[in-house]
């Protein structure tokens, strides 16, 4: 408590607050300042380092996580605004097996090379496939256009997603 009180004095931006939310099915309460982004809290406070800092502008998709099932750029989300939300990353518990299937097909199609974009991409793909639509290759590209991958040239990613889209309704 003494520590946190000291921190509060140091805070330029005003009051610290306690924000409860869930990360990969674990309940947490984070002691944060108003300006802290969800990305900053996930990486620096909770050590959830599979979430990557890419551009800080919401353009690259490396920091995408699922907030109540919706793909969101965590760099453009203030942590204070996700109070009581359910955050999921690629390391979430996986009773349905969809995360594992995505990862497996990404690996099989060599849709990851350096891997920096993969956690964000997989999160967007998870949300996309859970919506249950059957998309054409062009529509998959459009749906994933908020992600930048500098290695694969995207063809492999589209291959993997196309396959999961065909497999998932059968498996689930």
């Amino acid at each position, binding site marked *: 408590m003494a520590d946190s009180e000291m921190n509060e004095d140091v805070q330029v931006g005003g009051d610290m607050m306690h924000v409860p939310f869930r990360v990969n099915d674990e309940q947490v309460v984070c002691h944060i300042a108003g*300006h802290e982004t969800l990305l900053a809290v996930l990486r620096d406070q909770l050590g959830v380092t599979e979430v990557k800092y890419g551009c800080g*502008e919401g353009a690259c998709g490396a920091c995408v996580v699922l907030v109540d099932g919706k793909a969101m750029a965590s760099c453009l989300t203030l942590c204070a605004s996700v109070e009581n939300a359910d955050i999921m990353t690629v390391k979430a518990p996986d009773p349905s097996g969809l995360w594992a299937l995505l990862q497996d097909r990404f690996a099989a199609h060599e849709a990851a090379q350096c891997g920096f974009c993969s956690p964000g991409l997989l999160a*967007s793909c998870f949300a996309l496939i859970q919506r249950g639509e059957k998309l054409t290759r062009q529509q998959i590209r459009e749906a994933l256009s*908020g992600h930048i991958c500098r290695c694969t040239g995207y063809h492999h990613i589209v291959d993997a997603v196309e396959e999961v889209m065909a497999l998932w309704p059968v498996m689930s």
Partner: protein
Amino acid sequence: MISLYPYPFEYFRPETLEDALGLAQVDGMKFLAGGQSLIPLLNLHVAEIKGVIDLKQVAPHLKFFEWEQDQVVLGSFLTHEELQHSSLLGRRCPLFLMAASHIGHPRIRQRGTLGGSIAHADPLAEWILVMTLLDAQVILTSSKGRRKISFQQYLLGPMMTAMDPDELIEAVEISLPEAASYGFVEVSRRPGDYALVAAGVSVLWDQDRIAKTSIAVSGVSDVPLTFPAIAMTMCHEYPSLALIHDVKRAIEAAVDPPSDILADASYRRHLAGTLVARALRQAFDEGVNSRWLIAK
């Protein structure tokens, strides 16, 4: 590793619009809607503020389509995606669908709002061009009261508006003439980027003749330009390729774009003419196919 996180600021999430407007009285406070324009500025240290007023709780009151006979009032909290996929709006004014599909990518369209984009006032933003073209009325509210100004009065320059610091965009009012058709064309370096040049047109019809036209082009000046004199020459004409050609030439002669790192002046001039021509073609095609022409 140095990560760019925002400089410290305070966070407020008021329960009511009154509370939100009260908080805005404090110097240096910014309203936060979808955060797709404001938070990048904070992340990259382009902007420094005292605090944000998160409008999350207030949002349901600012998310509405209010339909009247010849106009629609759009709540400022409508997202780009909601505007893109509203089938009623798409039917009365397909311009919204056409323009929204160029905004960022699906994730940005899901969170970014109409009001946020207009408040941010990037001169290359699709909504800034659309509002200029339609000369929308902007409804501003603050604890001192509500006022309505035309978009022409509202947009003062790039990222500069006539809004007071404590004012909030509540809605925009768009008039929807019965016999109108629209065109919107944009060129950017990559899909989803801000436009290099974009053009929008609206054509009002009197049977199979043009009654009135508006033309707006962004990316050739510091804010989108309209061309009332050129538009006037189209009145009472029949739609034709020859007419489009004349207008294209006139637009090319009328603009004096700057050169910058993305494109030089001559390319921007070429785009202005070509994109207006293509947008007119869209509007003519749509007009000719529509019921008020067939029904004559």
